[in-house]
């Protein structure tokens, strides 16, 4: 058993000519049914379509990031992906030490100071969340909507702000209740929050809370179909509660990883830059769902266009949200 699929990568660097990719996960691990896993999908696609040699390393603790990155750098991999904002501080350090290796970081722009051999990929989650907000605002019957965040951090606040802006834009009468679990894995808390929200009349809840969000699906499943809804995040989470998942805000990290790896391999990429991805690049979207009514879909599409052509500027922080419209 084991991960036989990954064998052969360690052949001792037989073909010097081959393009080699390494991917270091954050502490969530490779198969986290979320962010890291989607990233790895992108790497696998690169292996299949481009013949790239790929190899993953999981981090058990924050301590492991540097050794893992270093390990790949010493193997002289052509690009080393670091998945997650948690790598924000360590990437510059390693990048400086190995100027001849390329690094890619997802979800952070390194505060704008991006070393020459690094490419920083960020997503406009607030924009995707805005559409989730629109979907919620147009689906709610009670005009009460919920948002469950994991740990209050600027990244999650970005989701919250976008989401609330979307609700405000599409249905100003709807109220959004916000709660943070201050955890990414306390399912009980997620479930309690969801339970309390639904009990108090909220009928649509969006989450950006990792494992805590699973509690949301656990709760919504026990409630009446067609009346209570959950909106997933990062990937299409409808599998968790098929009849209750309104949609999910999907981040196509896989596409991003694939495209950038491809560009680098074909030497078309200029590194030392931030690559911001949004609707235009097809990197964000709402998952297809039979539960979204056609007129809602239409509205969502309209807003999406408005965001793409800059008519709507979606807020990223609470401060920006306060002055939105």
């Amino acid at each position, binding site marked *: 058993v084991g991960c036989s699929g990954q064998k052969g990568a360690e052949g001792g660097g037989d073909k010097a000519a081959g393009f080699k990719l390494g991917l270091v996960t954050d502490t969530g691990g490779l198969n986290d049914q979320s962010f890291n896993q989607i990233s790895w999908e992108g790497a696998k696609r690169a292996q299949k379509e481009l013949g790239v040699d790929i190899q993953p390393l999981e981090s058990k603790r924050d301590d492991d990031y540097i050794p893992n990155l270093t390990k790949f750098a010493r193997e002289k991999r052509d690009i080393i992906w670091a998945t997650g904002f948690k790598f924000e501080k360590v990437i510059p350090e390693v990048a400086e030490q190995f100027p001849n290796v390329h690094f890619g970081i997802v979800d952070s722009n390194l505060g704008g100071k991006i070393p020459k051999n690094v490419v920083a990929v960020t997503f406009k989650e607030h924009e995707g969340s805005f559409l989730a907000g629109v979907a919620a605002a147009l689906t709610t019957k009670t005009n009460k909507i919920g948002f469950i965040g994991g740990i*209050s951090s600027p990244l999650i606040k970005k989701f919250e702000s976008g989401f609330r802006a979307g609700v405000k834009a599409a249905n100003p009468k709807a109220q959004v209740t916000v709660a943070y679990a*201050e955890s990414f894995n306390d399912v009980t808390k997620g*479930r309690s929050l969801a*339970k309390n929200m639904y009990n108090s009349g909220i009928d649509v809840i969006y989450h950006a809370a990792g494992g805590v969000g699973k509690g949301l699906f656990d709760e919504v499943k026990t409630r009446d179909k067609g009346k209570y809804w959950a909106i997933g995040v990062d990937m299409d989470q409808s599998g968790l509660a098929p009849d209750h998942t309104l949609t999910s805000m999907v981040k196509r990290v896989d596409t991003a990883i694939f495209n950038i790896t491809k560009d680098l391999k074909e030497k078309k990429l200029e590194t030392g830059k931030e690559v911001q991805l949004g609707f235009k690049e097809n990197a964000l979207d709402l998952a297809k769902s039979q539960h979204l009514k056609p007129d809602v879909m239409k509205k969502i599409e309209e807003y999406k266009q408005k965001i793409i052509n800059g008519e709507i500027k979606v807020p990223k922080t609470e401060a920006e949200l306060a002055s939105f419209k």
Partner: protein
Amino acid sequence: MIDILTNILQTTVLYATPLILAAMGGLFSERSGVVNIGLEGLMTIGAFTAAVTTINTGSPWIGVLAAILAGIVLALPHAIASITFKADQVVSGVAINFLALGLSVYLVKYLYNSGQTPTVQKKIEALSIPGLSEIPVLGPSLFKATAFTYIAIAIVIISYIILYKTTFGMRLRAVGEHPHAAETAGVSVIQLRYIAVLISGALAAIGGACLSISIGSEFNQGTVAGQGFIALAALIFGKWKPFGTLGAATFFGFAVALSLMGQLIGLVKYVPSEVLSMAPYILTILALAGFVGRAVSPAALGKPYEKGSR
């Protein structure tokens, strides 16, 4: 207002249920004189086994049974080390925690090549007791709970009866207070402590199962995330008594419920949500420092039993 009360009560019950189960496990072990800091690990193995078994058999009740079995099996090394080999009980409990977390995640990765199990489809869901569940406030929280909650409360009552009304219970308490007295009265200290530690494994594992196949619907390394330690705290807080422990676990659940409610009624505008999340822990400290104070543990707690020594 009624809504808020209902919500608070529901959250309290939800949170307290696994804590009660695990803490009652701890109670048996510690009343017999064996420290059980391994509750966290026992819950973990219970959560893991219940999830995997339920996924494979489609029956959550078989999952619970399997969890009980696994809890007993994992408690066995703790019993052997601390009773037969007279190891330091804290050490052995710490080892249980390492073992459980290591083994369960290792197995999950081996079985599913992933950091967590697939989603458990058939779970133990809430059970409305007709009539009673219609009572305002109390109904929705107490009589529309899952089987685990009823089991937890039943276990508290049964434990009380066992502990104070039956031969086994009296012997158990005697063994935890003065094992030599028990031995000279013809009670087998070793045998009783084994039974107590194994019961502890079983109950803590049910608590774990509650997390993975009732409240949640999968197992990963964050499933238990410290609740075994909270259960241990509840046991001490409850002064090693069944109803005291029930009360302590409920108090903790209640404190969490208050902090969640604080968010939902918009307190976050004034108080950072991290501070609200701290509240249950601060409340517990205040309660202990202010009202509860000294906890007298079973006299022989933590001391390996050696025949003939004193």
